[in-house]
């Protein structure tokens, strides 16, 4: 059965929640005074979730983050604040391709964000019809831009060029942002070396088994603790924990420092994904910082069908290997060679073995195999994509 996604405030926890007959589990986001502090999964019995029985588990799930939030609230301070920072102006960019239904949900979410003077851009990437344009026309505050070169990174680059404001905040078209999303991203740009801020992405719904499997396999959440990543705190090539392109904000001036997104990477090209992680790596290699801000929350609608989830997981495998290929070939970072080795030996093969032996809580074997097949195609996909890009540049 399905899992219901709930968003609960710890200072006002209800004793029980009724009306959940269609669900067997509840995926709960815990907040304290609107700040996300933890998540946990609880069972639903007879359509009813009795929270009273689980208070201790709930507090444990909040953990250190809860106590930090509580203490900061008690002392009335914001630990990361500087005494003089004014939030910069932002441009929100939604890159989309032939998904008007999802895009509508996203735009509705963007319209209710508090108005701090942000600009909203919709980059329609190589569309097959006018549905997106017609949809965007209904929203007075959103500006429509059409980018004909196929590729998510092409769309992102177009957004960086078209944006009028200093910070460009990207969200996927199948994601719905929280009301504080933009402000929480922006407040982290106070340090001059912060080039990029990423947020936490949680599942919007877990109605189908495929969605639950995707969340379990490849959750976008990187935890609830704010982290500052730099080439000093981690290997700059290891960007897995840094964030995801579905929820990120970039300082526009970075383009002059390190260039645009690599148009041979990510959705719409042979490489399927990896465009965001490659940019994160370049940011860290250049000595800048990426802040992971869990208070910048966004809800992502995972693919509903098994077929699509498998395709997505395969795409991630391809994208990661493509990104690593670029590191080797373009940035000449030989240190990348140990990454595929470690991933295979310490993560992928153990997962595969656990799945074959059907140990408790194993990942579905179809997804593991899809990922491995994607990985195998990665390097060649990148090289092909680059050649294709060069040829299309010559033709233009």
């Amino acid at each position, binding site marked *: 059965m399905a899992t219901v996604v709930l968003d609960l405030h*710890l200072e006002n926890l209800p004793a029980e929640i009724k009306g959940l007959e269609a669900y067997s589990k509840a995926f709960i986001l815990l907040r304290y005074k609107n700040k996300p502090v933890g998540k946990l999964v609880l069972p639903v019995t007879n359509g009813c979730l009795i929270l009273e029985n689980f208070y201790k588990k709930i507090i444990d799930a909040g953990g250190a983050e809860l106590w*930090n939030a509580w*203490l900061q609230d008690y002392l009335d*301070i*914001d630990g990361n604040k500087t005494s003089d920072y004014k939030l910069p102006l932002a441009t929100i960019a939604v890159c989309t391709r032939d998904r008007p239904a999802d895009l509508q949900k996203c735009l509705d979410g963007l319209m209710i964000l508090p108005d701090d003077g942000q600009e909203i851009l919709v980059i329609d990437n190589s569309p097959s019809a006018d549905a997106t344009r017609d949809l965007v026309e209904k929203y007075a505050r959103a500006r429509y831009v059409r980018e004909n070169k196929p590729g998510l990174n092409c769309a992102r680059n177009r957004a960086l060029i078209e944006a009028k404001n200093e910070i460009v905040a990207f969200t996927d078209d199948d994601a719905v942002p929280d009301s504080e999303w933009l402000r929480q991203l922006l407040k982290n740009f*106070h340090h*001059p070396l912060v080039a990029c801020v990423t947020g936490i992405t949680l599942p919007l719904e877990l109605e189908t088994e495929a969605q639950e499997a995707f969340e379990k396999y490849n959750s976008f959440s990187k935890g609830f603790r704010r982290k500052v990543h730099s080439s000093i705190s981690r290997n700059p090539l290891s960007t897995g924990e840094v964030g995801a392109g579905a929820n990120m904000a970039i300082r526009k001036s970075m383009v002059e420092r390190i260039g645009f997104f690599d148009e041979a990477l990510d959705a719409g090209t042979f490489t399927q994904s990896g465009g965001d992680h490659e940019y994160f790596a370049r940011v860290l290699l250049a*000595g800048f910082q990426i802040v992971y801000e869990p208070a910048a929350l966004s809800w992502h609608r995972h693919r509903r069908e098994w077929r699509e989830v498998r395709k997505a997981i395969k795409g991630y495998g391809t994208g990661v290997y493509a990104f690593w290929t670029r590191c080797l070939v373009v940035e000449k970072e030989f240190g990348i060679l140990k990454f595929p080795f470690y991933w295979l030996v310490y993560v992928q093969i153990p997962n595969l073995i656990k799945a074959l032996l059907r140990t408790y809580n194993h990942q579905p074997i179809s997804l593991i195999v899809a990922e491995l097949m994607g990985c195998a195609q990665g390097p060649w996909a990148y090289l092909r994509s680059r050649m294709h890009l060069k040829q299309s540049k010559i033709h233009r």
Partner: protein
Amino acid sequence: MMQTSISIIIPTHNRKDSLECLLRQLGGQTYPMDLMEVIVVADGCTDSTMEMLENFRAPYKFNFTQQNGSGAGTARNNGASLANGQLLLFLDDDILPSKGLVEAHVLARKDQNTVVIGYLELTAINKPSFFFILYRLWWENKYFAMRSAGYRYNYEDLLSGNFSISASLFKSINGFNNTFRCREDYELGVRLIKHGANFVFAKDAWGYHKDEVNNLRRSFYRKRQEGKADVQMGFLHTDLIGNLKLASLRHYRRYAQQVLIFSVFKAKLLGSVFFEGIGKMLPFIEGMKMRSTYRRIIMILNEYWYFRGVADQLKSFNALNDFIRTGNASMPDPDNYIELDIRNGLSHAEEQINLYRPSGIHLRFGPYMLGKISHKPAFEKLRAKHLRFIVEREFSLPLLKLMALDVLTRKNNSTEKITTIEEL
């Protein structure tokens, strides 16, 4: 405010092009030219600096002098003695000021006791070297710290490349100490803090710093100078010794300590050859993109060269130990500690702090002792705005425990309904 006359003092040594650029930029400041005076002190210049200065046409009052290699501190003192302005602004010769730098310094002042520290940004470069990345992080963090809410200023915040001070305060404190070739600004900082000056960081008083950063050799040489300067500082201000880097040697791991002491105090030549050899490997390590190895080696070499500087002044390890001991001896608690109770909220405690400006605080939570905020030499006396952040940083766990204990005690004493969070 805009009526203040300001004297900009620039010590310079063989940087004719940078200096000329700076002087021209000062002509474009938003601050009225008739209130500005610029004094350049050329310190042992062998390039065409003097010639350039003689031919320079300035839109502001312009004066220059020279001295023979006595160092930046002396140069600044010299410049100050020639200055006529009410406010003295010290700038280094390798900075490129923003148009509003002078104005920002003036606007940030609150009274005659204020010292304004301006912001210097490193000019960005594409494809930075590993060293530049480390250096830039250290540099930006230093300035960024001063912007955090509730920041407590200390002597290391006085950065002489871009700061302003009233002429009367500078005179009453007798300016820079001439005997310091390095860290003369920190030493001035110590005396200013002890005098009770108010430090203020003004982000708008900004300029670019054109540092030739990639010179590893120069950076290690500087570390050695810093070691020497720290010893000098310790002799001059013995209560500071415990907080200097040289006093941290006893916290090193036993093996590392032995190696360092041996190579710094005993086998100087062997140590030199060994560590310089390691230094020569750095470009190779960078070529192999071995970032964490590079970083660790830089840290080790920094330590080595710093202690070589310490050894230059204190000839033996025993002398160092004695030195540290004199520091320990001179650290009694000053008598202006106050006791504050934060159980009923912090506003009352904050008022008390601003009233008394204590050196330290004994914190209580009702009948329980929470802890002690100790006196820190050469840190500004405590202000109200520091309290909450100190509590969060140093006393969070004891505070949470005491609050829980408090709630449980109250729960036992009455039947009031308590919210879910506190119940747990």
